[in-house]
């Protein structure tokens, strides 16, 4: 089914974990139990609970309007989601697919929640980072936000969180839009909360809002066109009907709108201009959370549309890979890395680095191969870990030193050794040093490039890795090899900041040393997306 241009090199039939087509675990609650117990009910409704738990907790927080309780609830919401995401992931690791009809309305009419390896991976990212962010939020918002704003913050946070989960888990294209808006709108609010620290946050949030809305609108326009052609909004359904319409101009336009819409959301170069400021001026915890999740979810959505909805053949036909994703990805990598080198604010350095990192994901797509797609999926996960760790570490620095410009960070390594050590850990991962997840991503990207025999691409990938070393090292040097300004006392950030930060840092190393799990997950996801398992279609 895949285009001959797509390399499926490693696909020996024996290796594929074939689940029976249409293994619908949990659909309609059909189990062997006579009367399902509570546990079974929960188990059977996991996909729905994934989103619903945080979504319902969000308004509750506003209602209670209590600082301590709201934090507690946010913790509960995120950690329960994480638990669910882990369980769901284990269920799809073998390549099977979970389809869940919301409210027992059968798709395509009802809204379908659909979990396969690809979005399980993303769910895991969002839930895990969300949990870390929730823990982290407590001291961070204490410092950066006013007391009264805090319940609002946690509400917005949980909304955003559930929105992102929703985007990821849904099998319905319009439902995706809804969740996208839920997450986006709350994100704008979250970014704007940075205004207490720096008024420029308002401007950044505003720009983000405009661009985000443009993106979402484009998406919905494209979707509308597709709906016009097919009469369905269910992704699986769309996927079945669209191939018959190949060649239709309307469909091209729909595809174009959707691509650009999502590309704006995921900050593809040159549609990334909203990102640096949003990341820089948002509250620390928000930056960390968004950087690690939001763009990844958008990338996921794009992948979902390309591979599942429109189909790889269509995208190949549309020259999306070769003429759009690959070149723009590359330019994004180079430009993002270069800009990062000259930045003087650590957050901005990381923000531009994110632009570059998204470039890597797009290049992985542009390679049009199983390995390439695996690399992209893998990098989504890995990049979430590293950027999460880095931004959280910066947040801790911010907490103590009141800013993360290079000037303020002088001597930070000696003032707060544990925090900066975490930052170094994340930074090394970003550079792609072996034993970290960054290396694993790069390994797969390079492997994919080798398969293609695109040696120039290898060179670019390697050179930009070194550029990452350059911009990270500027921070390291300032933090460790410059004397701290007079009068600043030595002291660490609170434990609640350090624990999630270090959890992510250790995850960077854990999954860098023992990447089999993530690689398997990513590869299963890639196989699923390319239709190499029996599960997805």
């Amino acid at each position, binding site marked *: 089914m895949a285009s001959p241009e797509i390399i499926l090199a490693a696909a020996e039939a024996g290796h594929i974990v074939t689940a029976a087509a249409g293994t619908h675990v949990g659909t309609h609650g059909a189990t062997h139990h006579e009367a399902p117990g509570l546990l079974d009910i929960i188990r059977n409704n996991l996909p729905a609970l994934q989103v619903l738990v945080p979504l319902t907790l969000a308004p509750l927080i506003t209602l209670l309007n209590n600082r301590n309780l709201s934090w507690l609830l946010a913790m509960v919401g995120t950690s329960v989601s994480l638990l669910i995401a882990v369980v769901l992931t284990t269920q799809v690791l073998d390549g099977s697919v979970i389809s869940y009809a919301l409210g027992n309305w059968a798709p395509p009419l009802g809204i379908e929640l659909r979990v396969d390896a690809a979005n399980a991976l993303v769910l895991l990212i969002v839930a895990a980072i969300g949990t870390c962010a929730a823990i982290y939020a407590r001291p961070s918002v204490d410092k950066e936000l006013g007391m009264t704003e805090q319940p609002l913050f946690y509400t917005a946070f949980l909304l955003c969180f559930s929105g992102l989960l929703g985007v990821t888990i849904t099998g319905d294209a319009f439902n995706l839009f809804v969740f996208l808006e839920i997450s986006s709108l709350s994100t704008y609010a979250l970014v704007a909360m940075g205004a207490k620290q720096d008024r420029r946050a308002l401007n950044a949030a505003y720009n983000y809002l405009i661009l985000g809305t443009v993106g979402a609108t484009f998406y919905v326009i494209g979707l509308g066109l597709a709906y016009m052609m097919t009469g369905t909004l269910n992704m699986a359904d769309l996927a079945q009907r669209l191939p018959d319409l190949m060649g239709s101009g309307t469909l091209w336009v729909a595809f174009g709108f959707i691509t650009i819409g999502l590309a704006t959301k995921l900050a593809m170069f040159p549609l990334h201009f909203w990102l640096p400021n949003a990341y820089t001026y948002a509250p620390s915890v928000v930056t960390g959370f968004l950087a690690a999740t939001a763009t990844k979810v958008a990338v996921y959505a794009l992948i979902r549309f390309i591979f599942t909805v429109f189909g790889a053949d269509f995208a190949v036909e549309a020259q999306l890979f070769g003429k759009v994703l690959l070149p723009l990805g590359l330019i994004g990598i180079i430009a993002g890395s270069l800009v990062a080198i000259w930045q003087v604010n650590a957050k901005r350095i990381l923000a531009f680095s994110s632009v570059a990192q998204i470039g890597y994901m797009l290049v992985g797509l542009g390679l049009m191969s199983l390995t390439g797609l695996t690399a992209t999926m893998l990098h989504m996960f890995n990049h979430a870990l590293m950027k999460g760790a880095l931004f959280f570490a910066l947040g801790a620095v911010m907490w103590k030193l009141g800013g993360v410009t290079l000037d303020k960070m002088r001597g930070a390594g000696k003032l707060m050794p544990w925090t900066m050590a975490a930052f170094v850990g994340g930074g*090394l991962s970003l*550079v*792609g*040093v*072996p*034993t970290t997840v960054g290396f*694993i991503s790069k*390994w797969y990207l*390079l*492997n994919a490039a*080798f*398969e293609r025999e695109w040696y120039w691409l*290898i060179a670019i990938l*390697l*050179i930009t*890795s*070194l550029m990452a*070393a350059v911009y990270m*090292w500027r921070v390291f*040097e300032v933090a*460790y*090899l*410059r004397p701290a300004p007079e009068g600043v006392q030595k002291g660490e950030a609170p434990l609640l900041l350090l624990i999630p930060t270090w959890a992510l840092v250790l995850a960077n190393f854990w999954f*860098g*040393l*023992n*990447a*089999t799990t993530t*690689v*398997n997950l990513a*590869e299963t996801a890639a196989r699923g997306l390319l239709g190499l398992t029996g599960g997805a279609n």
Partner: protein
Amino acid sequence: MISMSFDLAIALSLIIPVVGTILIGMSGDRPNQRETVTLLTAISLFAVTLWLLPQVAAGARPEVSFFEVLPGMPLKFVIEPLGMLFATIASGLWIVNSIYAIGYMRNTGEVNHTRFFMCFPISIGAALGMAYAGNLFTLFIFYEVLTLSTYPLVAHRETEEAKKGARIYLGVLLTTSIGLLLPAIIATYMLTGTTDFTAGGILADHVSPTTATILLALFMFGIGKAALMPFHKWLPSAMVAPTPVSSVLHAVAVVKAGVFSVLKIGIYIFGIDYLADADLTFWLQAVSAFTLVTASIIALTKDNLKARLAYSTISQLAYVVFGLSLATAAGFMGGSLQIAMHAVGKITLFYFAGAIYVAHHKTEVSQLNGLGRKMPLSFIAYTIGALSIIGLPPFGGAWPKFVLMEGAVDAGQPLLIAVLIISSLLNIAYLLPITVRGFFLKPDGEDTPAPFSWDGVKEAPFMVLAPLCFTAFLCFVMFFAVDAVEGLIAPILN
């Protein structure tokens, strides 16, 4: 049972340094505790190595895969003789170096002791990881760990000069390893489906000679730690570091790790026969010979002692690459011996450089006139180390030259012997003036040399002097102990 203990030994080799680092970090500002932990770590690590050594020498090849980093890409360790040799040198000299470092740091007013001592175990652990690596992938991982863990040591003094030097150090090593070595490893993997070190090599049936040549170039230059020209600049740059660091770089771990990798890749990835049959190494002979001679000539022009020694190291390391490029068993053996002999010799020279700095704050060769009267033992030790480096009997350094010459003859390239001879003579010209100045020339500003008296002697503190004398003595012992090294390596050449 046996395999259990092998697993444990290998695991311990990696865990002990980590534990040591953590404990040192926890020692904070308690110097005695910190130093005790350092020494204990060093000793226990060496004990583990010594437990392994006789068994490997007897033919055991302990193998263990802890887990798969990537599917099909395990973190794999196989102890074979070459790695065992490197591990023994690294962990053995580390004990000496720890003592020296303690003495040095106590007496020079350096700061940040804790960070300083924390980085050592990590780098030694990384060196052992490389030594025992069972595949390229594992080797690469520890290679990078070694680079990064030594960076803080190079930048230790935190001056502008130190930062610049460290930047070059890191820049060159990272650029070469990521830019050249990593693609080479990936290419090897893609072409052969494995990166395991295999006797006889893995490439022979999978690649064309052209590809193999490109790969060889990527590997040889990619291992920037081997300091083959033009990627040698990091070594002199790293000279800004305190002397114990220099000795780690030059003798214990870093450059040794580089040339060790060169040899290991040469024999286990390419295979000597393949290198020879496919005639891949002609250019490498040229490059290493060029490095060998040019670095010596540059060394002649350096007045700063450590800079001179740095170029000397570049030249000496090229011997190892040169040995590989001969693509003969003897050449390989010569390279292996050179790793061992140079380690002992060069560490002596660096200890000397540190000793004169600690005792008299001298750094330049031209400042050494008459200093030998004040530091007779140091200068004698230096002279012994220098003679070993030059390659004169009865010091260990003589053997590698002899065996390398045999290698050149076996390779049908007897003219290459000239390179070795020229280099030896150049070594005399840049190493021995220090001895003469120290003992025989009169100090600046004095008309006649003050008569020697024991009151005038001011040697470096005991903890600095003792390691210096010990390694000098080792140079001598190694001349007679060469058979042990040879016997260890020989099985992999059959």
